[in-house]
C-alpha cells in the first residue's frame, strides 16, 4: 500500500490520528493515548483495478494499461480504494464502575489500502 502524499491522486492510505486528550477521553481511556483511524482514499483507474497492493513498477503499470485498454468495453469497470490490511486496537479503560477493562477490538486500524 501507499501512504497519501500531498498531490497524489492514486488510491492511498490517509493517516488520521485521534488524540484522546484532545477530545477529552484521556480520563477514562488509560492506554493507548490515541487511535489511528486511518482511511483509504483516492482513485482506482482501470489499469490498477483489482490490484490489492499497488505495484510501483512502471512495467506493471504499462502491462495493466494494455489489459485495461483491451478490457475497456467490459461492463462493470472501476473499483474502489479499500483497506487491504487491518490490525486490532488494544484498549485499557475504566468502565462506569471504575473497573479497569482490557480488550482488543479487531480490524480497527487500517494498515494498507489497495484497489478492489
Amino acid at each position: 500500500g501507499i501512504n497519501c502524499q500531498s498531490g497524489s491522486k492514486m488510491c492511498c492510505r490517509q493517516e488520521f490520528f485521534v488524540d484522546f486528550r484532545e477530545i477529552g477521553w484521556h480520563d477514562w481511556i488509560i492506554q493507548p493515548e490515541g487511535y489511528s483511524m486511518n482511511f483509504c482514499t483516492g482513485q482506482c483507474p482501470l489499469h490498477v483495478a483489482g490490484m490489492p497492493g499497488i505495484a510501483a513498477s512502471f512495467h506493471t503499470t504499462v502491462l495493466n494499461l494494455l489489459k485495461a485498454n483491451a478490457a475497456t468495453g467490459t461492463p462493470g469497470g472501476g473499483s474502489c480504494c479499500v483497506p487491504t490490511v487491518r490490525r486490532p486496537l488494544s484498549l485499557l479503560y475504566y468502565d462506569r464502575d471504575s473497573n479497569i477493562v482490557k480488550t482488543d477490538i479487531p480490524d480497527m486500524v487500517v494498515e494498507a489500502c489497495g484497489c478492489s
Partner: protein
Amino acid sequence: TTRADHQCLACGEHALDLQSQRELLLPLAKRSILDKLHLNQRPTLSRPVSRAALRIALQRLHGRPQGALPEADRGQEYEIISFAETGFSNINQTRLDFHFFSDRTAGGMEVQEASLRFFVQLPPNTTWTLKVRVLVLGSHEANLTLATQHLLTVDASGWHQLLLGPEAQAACSQGHLTLELVPEGQVAESSVILSGAAQRPFVAARVRVGSKHRIRRH
C-alpha cells in the same frame, strides 16, 4: 460517508481540507469506539482509582505466565480489574465487595478465571493462616450465605494472590462478589489486610461475552 457534493471519500479527489476532514471524522471515531465497546456513551468516572493502585494492579496482571496463547475461537474477551469496596470490617475480619455489573452483563458474561489480589502487613517472622470465605446472595436475595471457603497460609508481608473457584466466578458473572478474610487462630492488634489507596485489594477476572451477545453481533 457522503460529503456535501455527494461523493464518497474513497472514490473521489482529496477535495476536503484538513480541518473539515477532522470535523467529519472525529465524531465518527468516537462512535466507532463506543459501538465496538457496546457502550452508548463514554463512561463518567464515579470512583476514580489512584494512579498508584492502577500501576500495582497492572504489574500484578502482567505477572501472568507469558506466552499463554489464546484459543483460536476465543471471541470477544475482556480482562476486568475490580477494586474492592471495604464493607463491614474489624480487626478480626475484613469484608470486601466487588461489583462487575455494567451493560456488558446484559448479554451475559462468562467468567473464565478470577483471582483475588490483596496486601498483607504481618509482624516480622510470623506465619498466618487466612480463611477466605466466599459469600453469595441466598435464593431469596435477602441475605448472604457461605458458598465456600479457602484456607491460605501467608508468611510474609506484601501482595498475595488466591485463585478463586467456580462459586466466586459465578458470583462475578452475576455482577457482585463478596469475600470475607478472617485470620485463623491469631489475635491481631490491627487489621492485617491493608486497603489504603495503593494497597487496595482487587479481583482480576478474565471474562468472555456470553453466546447470546454474540448472536446479536452476527
